[in-house]
């Protein structure tokens, strides 16, 4: 499923990221990469998805979050 499909307090692992090199660089440099464990903190309509990973609370733009495949654990 996509990052945007996760629910608050759900834990998961990033599986696949889709986008051009520019997008990949931005996402991975902030700490989101394949295999990273995360916890969705908030996921409200029309708002960025709020995730917690690598000890950091990160807001991911909704359209960008659509390009991140995750797996729930």
């Amino acid at each position, binding site marked *: 499923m996509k990052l945007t499909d996760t629910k608050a*307090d759900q834990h998961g692992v990033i599986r696949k990221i889709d986008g051009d*090199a520019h997008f990949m660089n931005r996402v991975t*440099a902030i700490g989101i990469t394949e295999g990273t464990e995360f*916890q969705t903190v908030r996921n409200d309509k029309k*708002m960025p998805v709020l995730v917690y*990973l690598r000890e950091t609370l990160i*807001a991911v733009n909704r359209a960008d979050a659509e390009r991140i495949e995750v797996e729930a654990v």
Partner: protein
Amino acid sequence: MNTRIALLGQPNSGKSTVYNALTGSRQHVGNWPGKTVEKNDGYYTYKGTRYTVTDLPGSYGLSGNSDEEIITADFIKSGQADLVCILVDASQLERSMYMVAEYAALDKPAMLLLNMMDVAKSQKKEIDHKLLEKRLGIPVLPFTAAESKGYEELKSLLAAELENPHMLLSHPETDQTTSVLEQSKAKYRWISEMLDGVTHTATPEYKLSKFDRVATSPIRGKLLCFGVVLLAFLVAMIVMSPFMAIGQMIPAVLNAPIANLLNGWHVHPWLVSVFSMMLPNVLYFCISMASFVFGVNLVFGFLEEIGFLARAAYQFDGVLSKLGLQGKAICPMLMGFGCTIGGTCGTRVMDNWGQRMLAMAVVWAVPCGAIWGVIPVVASMFFGPGGTLLVCVLILCYMLLMMVIVSKVFGRKLSPAESRSGMIMELPPYHKAHWKHILKEAFLKAWDIFKRALGTVTLVSLVFYIFSFSTSGNIQSSLLYRVGTAIEPVTRFFGLGWQTFMAFLSSAFAKEAVLGVLNAAFVGGSNLLEATFFAKSATPDNAALAASMVQTISKPEALAFLFACTFNVPCVMALSTTYRESHSLKWTARVALFYIGGALLLSCIVYHIAALFL
């Protein structure tokens, strides 16, 4: 001897705090050759030796293709720095070590500053920095940038490292032929090896604090934002008022003594009025602008540092994405309500040039603090208290519409859909505010504007002076009046008579001048010059102005005038700041022409529509 230091770090690593603390006001702001990215150089002296410090552009990595990353990587590779001091956030060590992993491949001397140790300690995170030092092979210094006590140790370490530099012992095994994703995985693997046993990274369940639950909720969070910002402006006004008061006193205090002195020397009257009237008022305008910049930067610096602005960016990302912008643009837009100059500088948070220029163009649509001092005064003359409120609401509504129009007109060029980068940002934990640092930053910015404004405002004042100069002291013999009345048949169509058109023109000079010009044009008697330059210090008689304005112009005309003034180009200093920040004369001029044309068209529309109802 090696004396060139560069600071490298991700956003929120506290890099600029360290840079400012090291160099103080001994800074130079320039441009990276051929790029629109700002270059900050400064220096400090330690034990008789002068060290230069380059503040490298903040980015999350070094291998991306943004201007910031290319500049930084090229700068390091070229060996222009003898030592690179890398900053990482000790409270998010694993993630922020990414910069070190990127740097390692460049094989240049470095040292590591473990910043935000206070935050790490408060989160009960322990870091074995000695072990990390051994693994990396470069010195590692635990640090809290916002506290002044660590800087002696830092300076002594920097000096020692410049004498005897160290390189990183290992670097991630990345294969350049593989994908970005594979390479980043290798980098994080390397980080885990480096941090093994240095700190524990067990991620506990994250719980939003009570406050954050409100701050991140879709509706209550937005209300909270508006509340906090409103409160912030209130505080800013209180802080600014003594400076404003002193500034206002200057023309009154200096006018007579200078005039007497020069008259005693039998200087030409024209020069006497330049020195006794215009220059003290230029000083007042500059102090006023600098106080606005100071106030706005003080409160927004505070909101930024405690971490609140990141929440605001989160709140408005959805809406702003539709404009081709992103959440981070909310900060300059809110700053714009205080001061367009401040808001323009505030667009530095944007990630790429196109979005930044677009954000500046949008910020111009936000009515600034100075024009909010004009709107209620004029509106209440014509529409009463209830009507005034309605006018303010209408102006705010049009502001939103104008933002949409500006983003539609310029967005396609400046922020085409395929190059838009959405917001991916961290919401840092709430910090304590370090007032000394915030005050210093705000002061430096205000001082910078003050210095630049002196030149620009003097020049524009002189031009205005020549146009409004009249030998008889009567407004009717000034060039401005002649031109104004000559083109009145045209401006009438836009709903502007010669008086209001003059005030409209002056609003592009400084919004502070609008009431003064209205006073001179409508009440007459007094010299236009005097009225313009004594705008506030002489407190124009609002009752007399009201009586005359209501008699001379109709309600639709007044409404059209208010809209025209509010949505005209911002003041000259905001224009010059936009040019300086964007480095693009072409785009600054384009947006300025659009605003002037737009304001006249708007005036026309408002006038003709209002004429149907009022």
